[in-house]
């Protein structure tokens, strides 16, 4: 028989030798199949989320490694649109479709850093130290710039020396905590991406 039909070369056909022999004569009724690649999301965990980019709010499914068992640190392997979401119905734009690379990205900031006055470089700093130093500066600036009454003697209770600029991907709940904490300090310059 022709060498071509050795099962070695044709394992992908998933046929038995006998079938192969028969098939060359056109007798076999078992269809030939090709093994497609393993589906990479076959056993991943799905988490529902919302795309962080524009305001359409596409539903996304984040596929992570592992089944959320205690001993697993999940890693993102794929992000795809959520077909149930009434607005995007599974579709994504070129930014949403690349979200996997936004989550797993070698450029991510991983440690708190400080640039000291006059310095030309970043230094690592511990979280505790950073928060201590920042809190000290906030208090000093507030104490130095607090305006209790305006020139007409009216109560205003403003902290004029501190500004807050918030991002476009801050959640409602986070924004609310910002409003609470900043307004309690008397911060007036409270702005976010919503303005621009």
């Amino acid at each position, binding site marked *: 028989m*022709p060498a071509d039909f050795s099962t070695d070369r044709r394992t992908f056909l998933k046929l038995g030798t006998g079938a192969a022999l028969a*098939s060359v004569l056109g007798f076999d009724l078992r269809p030939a199949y*090709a093994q497609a690649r393993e589906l990479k999301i076959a056993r991943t965990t799905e988490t529902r989320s919302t795309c962080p980019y524009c305001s359409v709010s596409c539903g996304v499914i984040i596929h992570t490694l592992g089944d959320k068992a205690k001993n697993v640190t999940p890693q993102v392997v794929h992000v795809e649109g959520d077909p149930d979401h009434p607005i995007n119905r599974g579709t994504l734009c070129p930014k949403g479709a690349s979200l996997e690379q936004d989550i797993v990205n070698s450029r991510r900031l991983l440690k708190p850093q400080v640039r000291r006055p006059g310095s030309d470089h970043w230094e690592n700093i511990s979280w505790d130290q950073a928060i201590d130093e920042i809190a000290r500066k906030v208090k000093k600036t507030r104490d130095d710039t607090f305006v209790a009454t305006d020139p007409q003697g009216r109560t205003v209770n403003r902290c004029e020396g501190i500004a807050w600029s918030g991002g476009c991907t801050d959640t409602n709940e986070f924004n609310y905590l910002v409003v609470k904490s900043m307004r309690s300090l008397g911060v007036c310059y409270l702005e976010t991406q919503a303005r621009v």
Partner: protein
Amino acid sequence: MPTAALEIKAISAHPGPVPGKGAKRNEGDGVCKLIDVTTCIGCKACEVACLEWNGYPFHETKFDNTYQTMPDLQWNYYNLIRFNEHEFADGSFGLLMRKDQCMHCADPGCLRACPADGAIVQYSNGIVDFQQEYCIGCQYCVSGCPFNIPKFNSMTKKVHKCTLCSDRVAVGLEPACIKSCPTGCLHFGTKDDMKALAETRAAQLREQTAHTNAGVYDPPGVGGTQVMYVLHDIRNPEAYGGLPANPTIPLMVRLWKGPVKWLGGLAISLGLVGVVAHFLRFGPKEAHPIEEVHRP
């Protein structure tokens, strides 16, 4: 039977009939991707979805006075929106954006041209898929393709192209590009359904818009394709970044794999007859490598 597997309809360079062909009832014209270029917004979500799904790496690209990501497809970049600034016949200006990728021809020139047994298969659902495991890197498929699609990887000496996400389709999912497409300019279903959808859309464009020459691109020269386009102007497919008006399989490939193929078939038959005769006459002995006959 494995779950993630597809039935094969045609095999490159395979002597004799495809095993099991016709064993199952006809499931129509297979699956089909419809691309309505009149609603394409050139966002490239399909490019990203494809790259992401297939796990290919980041390509270094360069600005080239266009929104187009790169000049041409690459072995690991299966689909590309081609951008063309265009003036329509009525003088109005247009930005034509066409997703370019494997057309999954019903009569695939690549498969016809391929000399490596099993390197290119056509599944019963119409998807034409390269099996790199059996690819010998000869690139005959490249010359066999009227759409200039297959691309050679010089490192691995293998040729690649869009798989129509055969892995996803095998488990009942749509291809990655189809799923991502924000406007639904990409649509997926059976060829029959997509044909109907395409014709309806083309008629709507002719009747309701300025595109009175809108039409469906399903070129007969390659037996029709499992990827179809709705174009604003069916008379001028070349305007969409070189979509051939009447694609056909190159003459050499056609000759070799068409009219001349019976010679190969005859050779096989004669060979088999010879083998039988030889066997009858001389008893069991190692068979001739008849396959040699097919090698051009």
